[in-house]
């Protein structure tokens, strides 16, 4: 696996945000390779640049400097509308606060990325979405709206949505931050299974100490720099 080209490649990546008190350097000269199928945790104190890194990998934010290549695409060079299209098929994102669309049911939330990406024929989408929900243990909640679901159920639906277009990369920003320990454990197990069984690369920002027991690798950031890159188990 290590011999193949990395799925994610960063060289000298930096990101600065303007702030009232002067520019804030969120990331600085970051060099990083992540290969396909890895389950990686990004850890560090608040303000260390963890979410910024995830946003750059998802194309949600643009790097200010350096080279950034994800799933074979140079993200800095990609125009906005192509970025959306790329994101829809190559990346699945899981948010801390789930970010399910409140006026769509669980099933419809999972099908929405399929409608955007147009990867699957329309007739197949409901079945695919139902299968994803069932695999994540919420198949029986398909026709409920997010407001009727528990936190754990919502995050499973969000994960199913992230997998809707069979992406090669799943980015999860504090996926267990809003869950109790039992649900958090379950989500971590699902993410680990994605990487180990389906070869999906999972990069997860987390504060959970328990997560380090599930991941293969952890990256520690401090003040926008990579200070530790450790392999586990």
């Amino acid at each position, binding site marked *: 696996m290590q011999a193949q080209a990395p799925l994610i490649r960063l060289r000298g990546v930096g990101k600065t945000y303007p702030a009232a008190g002067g520019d804030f350097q969120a990331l600085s000269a970051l060099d990083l390779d992540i290969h396909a199928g890895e389950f990686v945790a990004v850890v560090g104190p608040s303000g260390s640049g963890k979410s910024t890194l995830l946003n750059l990998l998802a194309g949600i*934010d643009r790097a200010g400097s350096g080279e950034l290549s994800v799933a074979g695409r140079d993200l800095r060079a990609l125009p906005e509308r192509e970025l959306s299209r790329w*994101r829809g098929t190559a990346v699945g994102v899981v948010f801390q606060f789930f970010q399910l669309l*409140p006026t*769509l049911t669980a099933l419809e939330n999972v099908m929405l990325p399929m409608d*955007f*990406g147009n990867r699957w024929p*329309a007739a197949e989408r409901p079945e695919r979405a139902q299968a994803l929900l069932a695999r994540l243990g919420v198949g029986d909640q398909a026709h409920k709206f997010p407001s009727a679901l528990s936190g754990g159920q919502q995050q499973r639906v969000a994960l199913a*949505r992230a997998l809707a277009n069979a992406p090669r990369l799943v980015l999860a920003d504090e996926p267990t931050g809003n869950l109790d320990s039992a649900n958090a454990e379950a989500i971590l197990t699902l993410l680990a299974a994605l990487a180990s069984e389906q070869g999906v690369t999972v990069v997860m920002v987390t504060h959970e100490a328990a997560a380090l027991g599930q991941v293969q690798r952890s990256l520690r950031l401090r003040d926008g720099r990579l200070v530790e890159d450790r392999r586990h188990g």
Partner: protein
Amino acid sequence: MADRRLLKSWRDLWLHRARSLLVVLAVALGLAAAGTVLNAWALVERATDEGYRSSLPVSATLVLDRADAAALALARAEPGIAAARLRRSVGASVLAGGRSRHAVVVALDDFARTDIARLQTVSGDWPPESGGLWMERSSLDFSGATVGEAIALRLAGTEGTQAVPLKGIVRDVSLAPGWMENVVYLYGSEAALAALGAPAGFNELQVRLKDTRASRARVREAGTALQARLARAGYTVRALDVPEPGQHIHAAQMDSLLMTQGAFGLMALAACGFIVVNLVSAMLAGQVREIAVMKVLGGSPRQIGAMVLAQAGALGLLASVLALPLAWWLGRLYGGLKADMLNFTLDGVATPAWALVLQAGVGLALPLAAAAAPVRAALRRPVGEALRDIGLTRDGQALGLRRGALAARMVPWLGGWARPVLLAVGNALRRRQRMVLTVLALASGGAVYLGAANLRSAVQGSVDEIFGAQQFQLQLRVAAPAPAGQLEALAAKVPGVAQARAWRSLRTRLGPEPLTLLGVPEDGLLGPRLIEGRWVDGSGTPQLVVTRLLQRQQPALTVGSVHHIAGRDWTVVGLIDGGPQALGYTSRAALDALAGNDLANSLVLRLERPTSTVALLDAVRQLREALADAGMPVASSQSQAESRRVVEDHLLMVVDFLGAMGLVMIAVGAMGLASTMGLAVLERRREIGVLRAIGASDSAILAMIQAEGLTLVALGWLVSLPLSLPISAALEVAFGRIMFSVPWRLVPSPGAALGWLALMALISLLACALPARRALRIPAAQALAYA
């Protein structure tokens, strides 16, 4: 299963159905207002154009000493003339329903003819061959007469009243409505008129040209050529009258009125557009994160933009479904009223398809156009920034800092109540785009309302001035010109008459255009205010004082100019307002010199008891008797009070039509305020929860919300005051095109300005009450947890 994008769009609209409904109502209101005027204009255009042309209107009327079959044959022999007829019209008065009205009785050589100025039978046996008269339909209600019953008629120049059966009703589209002109139009056979005492035979020759597109100048040429042929054949032609070809006499006025209302309809639509922009912006503000999430899920800006615009389009479609039938119905109602004012009917006239299609297009396009810029801005916002959005605007924060510093300085000076009030004022200013659009919607409504009030005041002032200049209460027309001195002497002897003055008039021409001169003696009981120059002196030299309307019709009549009229050179020495009259005043002595006699055709009388109706009626009766006994019978009489009432009703009706749009604009402004305050409260439920958590009472929060609404009203009021100046000018210019120019009143009266402020303040209190009460019903904990 429906595409999820469509499902989301529809369900989002339903979730925020109050806001969605406001958008629909705002678009529907503006569309209905503008659409009503457009439909009415299109219907009236079609009805009058088709109706007038199909009536084969008269191109020219020649007034002769005698008009007979030979004259008719001469006219028909002219190569350019398609049809001709003979006519006699006689002045009269009708007594019906207890009231006396001025009337004109018309006889034609052949009522069965349909190739010129067709009359349409409404009821009764047509054509009239025997005794009895037919009435023009627009005169029926006004006259108080009933078909089948007799009316009391006295022809000018005859004594005594005769009972004449009213046999039927006709429609003559070439005439302005009788009720508008204050005239009862009657038709009868030549024999019927002769039996009533009218001179035998005809005195008018009316022709219609073959060339229906001939200009007025061309028609006049043809008329002049015919005049010359008639003169060579021994006829005396006293006058040649050429109306504007192909156009009803009031068509231009009606067009101006409807166009002006249409402009205000568009203004209402624009104001509704402001409201829609606010509402759509608020809708998008609430979807910032969801739009960002959809981008993360792979939605392209085009796909997401289409979803939001589909929402806007759906609302526009719904608004069109509501507004179009309403505008169609109101347009027919209003158009019917307008057509009736021109003596036409909308029967068989359909609203043109283009008008309906245009309205549907605007209804769909308005919310789309309103959404375009906010959607573009929302889609351009970086995803990361949108996901980090926590609902406070940068503008709000900066303003909050300044506002906080200002409050800190003012509170010790004003007292403890100042901080919450200043907070409320600051809240009103927080979202600048929304505030500006709301204030504009309010201000435009107020400006039109104040402008209409100014116009009413200007028109009233003009009427006051016109009638204030007339120092008499009664005016009589004698059936035949009589020596002025004799008329005055006889009239002065009648008990109750304080002063009597004889006037004479002359119908002549200035170039090709008709001109009426009114000769008044010194102390002719007329004292108008001069706008320019001076009044005529009593020297008898040819001097003119013209009215403003006459000068507008004939711009060469400037003060100091000299014109050749009726064989003499006349100098224009003065200019007066004159209102709706297009006249030239001169001295009676000047007209006497021109005519070589002192014959006058009217008397104006100042009464000893000017305000007594009984004295007036008594004077009229005695004057008629006295003058008839002296062989100078009265053709008609009119009190100045009646004249003033007719003129005022007519003018104020036009003012009210113009001002009606002001009410629509106020409704739009009120809706804008209600929607803005509803949104403001909705968006700040969390903030309200914080205020309650730190000890603010319900009444304090209610007062803050009301203060915010009143701040917007105050700002709208302040902006409407200067905005009303150009609106007043526009209305007064429009009125001038429709009727006559009035002295401009641009500055709103304090009463109108304060009245509007009070009205909007009341609306604000009501508009803010409901959303405020709803917000207060939510428990503080729930409001704080709301995300």
